């Protein structure tokens, strides 16, 4: 009798642990980079000053013609929501990346700054359909 009760409790506990909702969120890099980028003055700030303002080297550098290059700072946000029903898991992941581009001319001066607009990222779980 005690063994059966014990077995039932173990089974029910395992079932409960195996089911539920899931939420995960992953952020990569500083999402506030856009705010820092506002301190950069086009045609005044040098590439060395840019590194001080941003506080880190760029995530990547794109080399352009005529000695120009682009310093790229990236950040991303990823949200996953799901429904975990024992033998069935349905989940949806929404991910958004944002960039800030600093175009630097051949004399090492920042020529222009462009940033993508940070927006809201929804939590969604339904993995089917087109919306």
């Amino acid at each position, binding site marked *: 009798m005690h063994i059966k009760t014990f077995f039932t409790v173990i089974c029910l506990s*395992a*079932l409960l642990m195996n089911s539920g909702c899931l939420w995960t969120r992953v952020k990569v890099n500083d999402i506030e980079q856009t705010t820092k980028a506002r301190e950069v003055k086009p045609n005044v700030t040098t590439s060395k000053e840019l590194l001080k303002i941003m506080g880190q080297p760029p995530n990547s550098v*794109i080399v352009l013609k005529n000695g120009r290059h682009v310093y790229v700072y990236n950040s991303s946000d990823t949200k996953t929501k799901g429904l975990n029903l024992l033998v069935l*898991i349905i989940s949806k992941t929404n991910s958004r990346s944002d*960039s800030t581009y600093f175009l630097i001319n051949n004399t090492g001066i920042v020529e222009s700054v462009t*940033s993508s607009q940070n927006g809201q990222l929804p939590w969604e779980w339904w*993995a089917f359909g087109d919306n």
Partner: protein
Amino acid sequence: MQKTLIFSCLAFVLVLGQGCVFNRTVANEQVRNLDTSFIRPGQTTAIEVLNRLGPPPPLPDIIDQQNKYFTDDFVRYACHETRRTEFRLTQILFLPFLWSDTQAIYETMITFDNKGVVKEVIKTQRKTIRPPFKNESSRPPLVCKQTTAKGTK
């Protein structure tokens, strides 16, 4: 006898734990409906495009590399989607049964000439399928719209 059956069923369910997984991942949906109506091929410059649309977003994983998004010759905005189906029998088999399809479902590519002026705007729309329930023949045809100084086709 009935209790044994119930316990057997519960044990079976536990063994199969997390059997079917359906996931959909959408990356960079913000570029899905980019308004490119302000672009005049032969007149608008690359800097004007970047200032208005913002820099192209990179993807958070290894689908594409940053240098495929912006060069002297083009800028590319892409929204990617992945549909994944997985059958996990982790307690029995360690090899997962996994099918996935990833596509750039909305893509806008703007090309520039030697002077950095817009040459053409190409908008492409694709659909993902959910394998193994759908195969390549289920994929709707690709939709492509090209705008140049001569017009749209």
